[in-house]
């Protein structure tokens, strides 16, 4: 399913949750949304889902408005950290409700997933643990093979084993059905594995959208040891994000191709020159110019 947002803004009583957000997600792509708490990730996903009406701008899923056209929602799946169920229903009653709601429901799939997770059909939802409720949510979201999956911090609160399992399941789903996925998460390491594109949301604004491999190819931390301090101009290059000095050791965060960076620093005949691997978090912070994140 193709998702398209154009200048979407959303206000809640004077507070602007989304501000002029525009992007396109081609069918079959996995799009990650990163951002601090309160950035508007949940609002964004709910607006795409059709639960909220944008104050201005337009949201289209496959060319149709998910808020007004109910049939589109039959192909959208939603999984959030906050889960709401009919607590008095048993697992099988909950499955039955979803089965009758979604025409594309696959019974064998739901049974297979339930058995895989070890969920008892007769247990009441209120008696399930938090982790089990998340698993139930996964079963419900995947069993009707939605063409668009919206995931709002689905791995928060999961232990590393379950997290990996969840991602594996998700990737299997994408590989098998070509599902379009929008996932918001704090876990950049997860997003790195599974996303085609990653977008940064900060205070309701979409700062940038990039491919992870592009990011990794363009930002490096270089440690240079120089016998004599070079001229001031040496450090005034615009592709240098930041320079920190500790005696004769200079740590530079720089944007550019690795080979050209190496040549530039080699020209200064350093005593030592090292490229330090940067975790994705630091790359992000450097790339976004420290906007919204403390980077001193």
């Amino acid at each position, binding site marked *: 399913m193709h998702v398209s947002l154009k200048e979407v803004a959303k*206000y*809640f*009583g*004077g507070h602007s949750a989304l501000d002029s957000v525009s992007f396109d997600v081609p069918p079959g792509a996995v799009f990650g949304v990163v951002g601090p708490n309160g950035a508007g990730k*949940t*609002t964004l996903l*709910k607006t795409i*889902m*059709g*639960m*909220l*009406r944008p*104050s*201005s701008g337009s949201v289209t899923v496959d060319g149709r408005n998910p808020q007004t056209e*109910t*049939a*589109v*929602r*039959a192909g*959208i799946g*939603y999984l959030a950290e*906050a889960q*709401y*169920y*009919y*607590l*008095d*229903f048993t697992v099988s*009653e909950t499955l*039955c*409700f979803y089965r*009758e*709601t*979604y025409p594309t429901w696959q019974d064998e799939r739901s049974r297979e997933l339930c058995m895989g997770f070890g969920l008892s059909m007769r247990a009441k939802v209120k008696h399930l643990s938090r982790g089990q409720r998340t698993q139930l949510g996964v079963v419900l979201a995947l069993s009707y093979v939605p063409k668009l999956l919206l995931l709002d911090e689905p791995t928060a609160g999961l232990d590393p084993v379950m997290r990996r399992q969840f991602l594996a399941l998700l990737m299997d789903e994408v590989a098998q059905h070509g599902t379009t996925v929008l996932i918001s998460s704090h876990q950049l390491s997860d997003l790195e594995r599974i996303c085609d594109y990653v977008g940064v949301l900060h205070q309701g604004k979409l700062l940038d959208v990039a491919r992870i491999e592009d990011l990794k190819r363009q930002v490096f931390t270089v440690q240079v040891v120089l016998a004599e301090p070079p001229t001031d101009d040496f450090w005034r290059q615009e592709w240098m994000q930041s320079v920190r000095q500790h005696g004769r050791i200079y740590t530079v965060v720089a944007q550019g191709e690795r080979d050209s960076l190496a040549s530039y620093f080699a020209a200064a005949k350093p005593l030592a020159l090292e490229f330090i691997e940067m975790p994705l978090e630091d790359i992000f912070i450097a790339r976004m110019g420290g906007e919204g994140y403390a980077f001193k």
Partner: protein
Amino acid sequence: MPLSKMLPSRALLRKDWRMTRSLFLVFASFITFASTLTLAYNIVSYRAAEGAWLGGLRASHRLLESSSGFHGAAMVLFAIMMGVVSMGLERDKGTLSVLLGMPYSRRDILSSKAVVSLLQISLPFIANALLMTLLLRTNQGVNFPFGVGAIWSWAVHSVLVLTFVLCVTLLASTVSGKMLGAAFLALVILFFPFGMYALVHVNATQWQTTGLISHGQGLFWHFSDLFSDAANYLTVPLWLIDFPAVVAVNSIVHVDMNVIELVFANSVWSFVVVHPYVLYLLLAGLCLGLYTWAQKWFAGTELNMMMNCWRCPACVGSLA
């Protein structure tokens, strides 16, 4: 539009029925106990007493003509609870946001609740009316002070009044964010007039004992009497207890078409002429109006992060 399209989907109906199932069962038992079982017990004791006119049958008669205060209030409270739970519980527990993300229109979501609540309120009455009719027909030897017509008019009348209560409550819970708020709103609307009157009357009696106002004279007592009539008309539970339009009818086919006269000796209005079917039609019209209003309100509702914001001027105002 084919009928299947006009009704909300089966999945919704089943889910809504399941949600208020326990409440429905308690309500159904209550009605059954109050009507059929009481009647059956009275018949048995009547036969045991070899035809001596026992007060037991009078109790059933009274139920059919005008429920006791307890029955009336209890039925209204049940109806309020059903209305509040069906909509308010979804909001409170957050499942409304799940529903809105599903391929259901808002119209279907609300209409499913209305249909299920209506069914759950009317089924006990219909079933009991059938059973009581059966009891009457199979016990020819007993001298009943009422006929089959009375049974069915009781059933129809109660269903209509409780449907009205339901519509008010459904509207209240669509408007109000939480179950508690909805319940409070409904209670105020339905019980308020009588409650207010009682408050005023008690106070007036107090003043009278202190000699400030003399009883039975003056403008105050006229207004008080006026208000008592208004209170009688406007307090819904009293419609179940002492609705002037309920008349003992002898058979289901021949309905007594006499016009009912209401004479209030002390009030400004000498009498009000009222025909039962006009009142019923009015009530039905009111129910429809309230339901439509609830649908309109629900369609314009926006759920914010806390799932309880509706029609915030800031939200709606900033729509381009």
